[in-house]
């Protein structure tokens, strides 16, 4: 499996070349949000706004009213928490095409509670007119730009940076409102998003070897949440459904799936993996994922609970799994 660096940095420059109305706004985190190459390549389309996010967001609304497409870049926390009123009133209410790129999703930073975006999806979900996308690998970081730009309204994107794996083939870009089928099965259905998917893929392989039939779905569109494949996948599960998100269990992926199941009267047991309504603290990603049980081992435990059995799977077994770049199962069916 490829691990790549500077994915967004290089891709944004290539992608934006023929789109002169796309402008980039920065709040003093230019290299931290991989827009330094864009700044150097298109200086006339790059605007340094300083450490003043509330202004940056309302300002972006103004630019959008004049026919531009502002691509706002900063850490997610400084978008959805720092400037919620501004997003709601200057951008979402008037349905303006501002694209908000939020970095450091969930517990992917040792910066502690002030830097960890652990409730952004929940907050953004309740804004009318908002579209929410989450990237989980290099292919999604690249293709999210086309998806976001196709939306006639505001878009919030959970972005990842630095060293990113390519889990999904380039030929299968992110599609608005479409989940990826990573494995088919009928015992348990697992929904994962963002960085959780790579982690989940470790354990589904090992569980399959132990005879567990798992349907694993990767979610990249959190709002609107209306992919029929979600209910279809959940309805199959004999023993229950698991959701796994780099986010609080309240209001995000877990809640979105719960709403879908409840409305359909699907009556499936649901186990939500994620932060159990707590702030986190500053530590390494691996440590936090274990501490808050948002890792492969936690998925294994959830499956064991649903099936009412135990498997002799250790952390070492999971660490030994090598992930190959995979093709979504949907491709074969769509042929």
């Amino acid at each position, binding site marked *: 499996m490829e691990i790549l660096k500077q994915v967004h940095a290089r891709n944004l420059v290539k992608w934006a070349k023929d789109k002169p109305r796309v402008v980039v706004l920065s709040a003093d985190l230019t290299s931290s949000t991989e827009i330094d190459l864009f700044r150097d390549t298109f200086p006339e389309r790059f605007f340094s706004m300083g450490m*003043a996010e509330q202004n940056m967001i309302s300002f972006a609304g103004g630019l959008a009213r004049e026919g531009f497409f502002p691509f706002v870049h900063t850490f997610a926390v400084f978008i959805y928490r720092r400037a919620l009123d501004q997003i709601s009133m200057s951008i979402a209410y008037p349905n303006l095409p501002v694209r908000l790129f939020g970095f450091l999703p969930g517990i992917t930073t040792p910066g502690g509670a002030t830097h960890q975006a652990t409730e952004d999806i929940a907050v953004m979900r309740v804004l009318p007119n908002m579209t929410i996308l989450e990237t989980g690998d290099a292919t999604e970081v690249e293709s999210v730009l086309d998806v976001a730009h196709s939306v006639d309204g505001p878009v919030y994107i959970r972005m990842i940076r630095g060293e990113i794996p390519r889990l999904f083939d380039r030929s299968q870009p992110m599609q608005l409102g479409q989940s990826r089928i990573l494995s088919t099965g009928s015992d348990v259905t697992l929904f994962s998003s963002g960085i959780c998917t790579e982690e989940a893929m470790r354990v589904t392989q090992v569980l399959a070897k132990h005879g567990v039939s798992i349907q694993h779905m990767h979610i990249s569109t959190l709002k609107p949440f209306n992919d029929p494949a979600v209910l279809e996948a959940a309805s199959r599960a004999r023993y229950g459904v698991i959701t796994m998100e780099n986010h609080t269990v309240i209001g995000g992926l877990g809640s979105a799936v719960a709403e879908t199941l409840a409305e359909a009267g699907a009556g499936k047991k649901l186990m939500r993996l994620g932060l159990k309504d707590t702030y986190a603290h500053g530590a390494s990603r691996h440590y936090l994922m274990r501490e808050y049980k948002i890792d492969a081992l936690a998925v294994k435990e959830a499956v064991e609970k649903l099936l009412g059995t135990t498997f002799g799977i250790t952390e070492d077994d999971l660490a030994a799994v090598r992930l190959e770049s995979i093709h979504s199962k949907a491709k074969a069916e769509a042929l």
Partner: protein
Amino acid sequence: MDTNLNKAISQQEVVHWQDKARRVARGIRQRALELTIKNNGGYLSQACSSAEIFAALYTKIMKLGPSQAPMTPPPFPGVPSANNPNSITGVDYNGPKSPDLDRFFLSSVQYAMVLYVTLVELGRMSPEGLAMFNTDGSTIEMIGAEHSPGHEITSGSLGQGLSQAAGIALGRCLKGEKGRQWVFMSDGEFQSGQTWETLQTLSFHKLDNIGIYVDVNGQQCDGQMENVMNIEPLQAKLETFGARVYRVNGHDVEALAYPADLSPNGCPLFVLAYTNTTEGMDILEERKPRLHYVRFKDEAERERYRTYLTHTFPHTPVSPSSSPFPG
């Protein structure tokens, strides 16, 4: 006693604190460089620009009692909640809370490392505590949290620290407490609107039991502040908002301490300390203006810095327990 002898003794005391402050500043730079080398990176330029400010605050300006906390901080005891009786703040490292004693608030928590090494320099925290910097499960976080030693509020989302300190200032004033509030900020925070909201509030409510030291080093993540979002003329702006402002050389401990001795006059006090991000560490000059976070690109570079450390700071820092000066 003879007046001349009195004068000689008090002159000696004056020299005494200045010497100590300068020694502490040097120790801060040394320990910061050691830690940065050990961790292959760190907010080193912040230590260079603010060493005298921290030294002056902790040795002269602030009226603090001795640390009430364990020399080596215990592991992180969990986040605050009604169900967690063990959650803490790092306030005990600054001494007991008492009506007549001062309080310290670090607003720009990327300076956390500088605060930690200051605490070690002054014998308020052990070197073993410092060694836990940025390790899983410790409270010695890279971005200071309210549970980190020396901290007592959550200010990692910049621009909120001053507001919180202002609320505390009012609270203590209402309670008739004489202790003063001292806030450390970085100049970048003046780009944030909330800072100006706090300033107008401090002026409006005539809160003068608060003094703010600002490290005006002219730099931020994206480079020179004048090229990112200029904030000057800062003194004029602050004065227009009703603040009492002193603009000083941020590496002169006497100049830093002087405004703190003035009788409060109904206005919040701001000391704008103009500083140099490579002060006392000229090896950093080659990196200007990208100094917000110093990282070594390879082992060879790290080795260069190790050599520089041994040449520039040949003596190991004075162990706090053997220091003749009180912490």
